């Protein structure tokens, strides 16, 4: 599938993103009006609930942005390589299950070993979850869009089975695991808040990915294969299958990390519906960032704020939290629409004359 999404250059990406946010807020306000709500009250509640105070911002908005940051980076990496990984949701669950299993099984290990083990195994699990669609694409030629989506459902039910069955808490009453030991929990990043070092880890990965894309041979190969696989193979003598394989699995492992970081940084136990669709929101996060890792940091926080604000909106203004999903869809559509308008701008069409 050739993508219509070209990773924009930095300045254009920023403009595009800002434009999309403005469009979305406008469209969202209109929809709220149409639904009989007061958009101003909704906006106020949203701001209060997301950036109303330092503590709100750090403990709610930033904390909620952590899984979006990881999953968004995973999606951005895959899309850059021309891999339509819609499967971050399933990979995230695989990572969460694997991570919590390590934390529960090897609870006696000291923290400097246990935490890396939890995170490392979750990476492997996320990659393993991505392996099925990867092989189906590379060996059988079956597009990854459908297969990754199907794997999402399998992942969600697998996690549900785990918390009802093999990993259910000791008393066997609630659909969740036991709480993981202290040594498996991520330390707090900013004392006095709930923000854990998972956020910092996400930032490190973002910087590393940005560096990789810009400075390393491998990152260059990813960009070439994603932009033009034939040219990469013919002119660059790059093996696109190899790049797709590595990028797909790397994307899966970062998504897997999202699940483990959430469990060992925040919830300390695996619940049946751990994710509120982060794997799908991640697509909006990545697109709004122009598929640039640095941008993902900003857009993940933006969506974290939206999610945080949605709770307040429901509480204070009586607006169903499901509106946030609508806003996410609007963001994606706005990015797509603006992208197309940009492409159709007079003068940007530099097609060769057919003579």
């Amino acid at each position, binding site marked *: 599938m050739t993508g219509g999404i070209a990773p924009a250059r930095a300045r254009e990406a920023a403009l595009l993103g800002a434009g999309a946010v403005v469009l979305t807020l406008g469209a969202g306000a209109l929809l709220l009006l149409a639904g009989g709500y007061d958009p101003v009250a909704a906006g106020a509640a949203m701001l209060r609930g997301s950036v109303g105070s330092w503590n709100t911002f750090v403990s709610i908005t930033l904390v909620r942005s952590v899984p979006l940051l990881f999953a968004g980076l995973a999606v951005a990496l895959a899309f850059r390589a021309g891999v339509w990984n819609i499967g971050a949701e399933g990979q995230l669950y695989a990572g969460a299950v694997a991570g919590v299993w390590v934390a529960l099984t090897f609870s006696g290990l000291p923290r400097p070993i246990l935490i890396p083990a939890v995170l490392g195994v979750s990476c492997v699990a996320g990659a393993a979850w991505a392996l099925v669609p990867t092989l189906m694409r590379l060996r059988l030629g079956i597009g990854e869009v459908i297969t990754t989506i199907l794997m999402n459902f399998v992942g969600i039910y697998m996690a549900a089975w785990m918390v009802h069955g093999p990993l259910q808490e000791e008393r066997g009453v609630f659909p969740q695991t036991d709480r993981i030991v202290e040594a498996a929990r991520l330390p707090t990043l900013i004392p006095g808040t709930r923000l854990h070092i998972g956020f910092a880890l996400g930032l490190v990965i973002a910087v590393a990915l940005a560096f990789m894309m810009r400075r390393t*041979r491998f990152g260059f190969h990813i960009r*070439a294969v994603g932009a033009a696989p034939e040219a990469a193979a*013919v*002119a660059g*003598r790059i093996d696109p299958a190899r790049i797709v394989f590595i990028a797909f699995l790397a994307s899966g492992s970062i998504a897997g990390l999202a699940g483990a970081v959430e469990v060992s940084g925040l919830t300390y136990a695996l619940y049946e519906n751990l994710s509120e669709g982060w794997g799908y929101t991640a697509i909006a996060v990545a697109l709004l960032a122009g598929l640039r890792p640095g941008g993902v940091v900003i857009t993940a926080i933006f969506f974290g704020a939206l999610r945080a604000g949605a709770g307040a909106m429901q509480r204070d203004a009586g607006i169903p939290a499901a509106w946030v999903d609508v806003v996410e869809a609007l963001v994606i559509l706005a990015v797509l629409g603006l992208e197309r308008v940009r492409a159709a701008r007079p003068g940007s069409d*530099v097609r060769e*004359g057919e*003579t």
Partner: protein
Amino acid sequence: MPVTSTFRVWSSWRARTKAASVSEPLVRLRGVQRRFGQVHALTGADLDLFAGEVHGVLGANGAGKSTLFNVLGGLLAPDGGTIHVDGVPVSLASPRDAWALRIGLVHQHFTLVPALSVRENLALGTRGRSLDEIGQAVEATMDRTGLRVPLDATVASIGVGDRQRTEILKTLLRDPTVLVLDEPTAVLTPEEVSGLFQLLRDLAGEGRAVALVAHKLDEVLAVSDRLTVLREGRTVLAAHRNDVSARGLVVAMVGDGIADEMALGVHVDAPTGAGAGAAAASRPEVETDPEARQVVAQLSGVCGERLENVTLDVRAGEVLGVAGVEGNGQHELALVLSGRRPPAMGRAEVPDEVAYIPQDRRTEGLVSEFDLTENIALGLARLDRFGSGWLMPWDAMGEEAERIRTRFQVAAPSTATLASALSGGNQQRVIIGRELALGAPMLVAENPTRGLDVAAAAYVHGELERLAAEGVAIVLISTDLDEVLGLAERVVVMSRGHVIDVPADERTRAGVGALMLSGGGEVA
């Protein structure tokens, strides 16, 4: 319109056109303009088509012939100018509009659906008729024109000659009064071309207006009543065939200065081919005895997709020309020779690094959303001399890109210009510059001048000559027979995946054409 009335309509047409005033053209285009990005393809094209005539449209590559025909066929909207049909001003916003005015375009690039059968392709877009009716009409038209195609085969499974016939039949089925053919002869053998021309004369005899672009001046002169010459998007000459000389036409096509350097009437579309041929004779030889030169690449018994038992040597300093009708395995041969694809069977000994100028610049040569530096890096960063670390040698790549931009005179403001912002000729310069920088002992070039203007084509030919003189083995794969004959010292023909050597005394259009037809089986 019911099929059964096809012939009635034709006859009524003849009656009408005979009655019509001779001075009133069926189609009149005036001052047509069309721009693609910064490229001005048409700057003021005029064209008159009269009922009953075959009208040849001439021009060098890039003169705007196809653009003009696509405007007439409703595929491209003009930026300016007027179109009159039967004296009435019209706007052709889509192929449907053109069809409504009974203007039928036979495209240069096939517009058939590969997965559908020939019959289905012929039926496509003829709504209002049942498939049975279409079947009858197809039979009738095949009988009348002598164009026969296998109706139940899928288009994907038939050869290019059959595709061309299908394309022409598809257009004729709709009974156009104005028939416009864009390069219909490019994929036909010389014998097939003369059959087609007879058909065109017959169609014109029925009172239709027939216009065609063809590659060769002599071909066009043989079939046309009147001629229009385009140069740089503008009509520079419109005359009856008897009122102009071949020499005069060439001057009109390419301008005075270049015409003097050309071998007259031999090769008008890429005039540098002949000029380059002359240069080839005078250039210093690396090694006078070709047999003594070192073998750079060797294929023996190579089989694979569209390749049948190919055995071939390529020697240092020679230009090996590979002629053939498109789609006979040339692209696959290029991939194997350039080391981009291992052969399914047989042995291929090729140098580690082979420079390759692919036919499709925009999908195989360049990444359009990369800038110049990145596109240069795509080819060069893997070379040992830029280190083998895991970091990209961006500084060195920037320098290489700047060097190539200057040396190969790429019209781009800087190395940060995106490849998509370059014209075709400049894209080709980037590719050539990059591939030459590889320092490879062999270069494989596939239709390297297709779609380039005269100056750019001359430049490419010059570079190939220069390289060969430096001892690089050149494999020139081209569907342009004159380009091959003009540049190559040794010529082979590809036909149905077979490679056939052309003996020295048969290195003529007729000789090679015959091999293209007979070679490894029937081509078309």
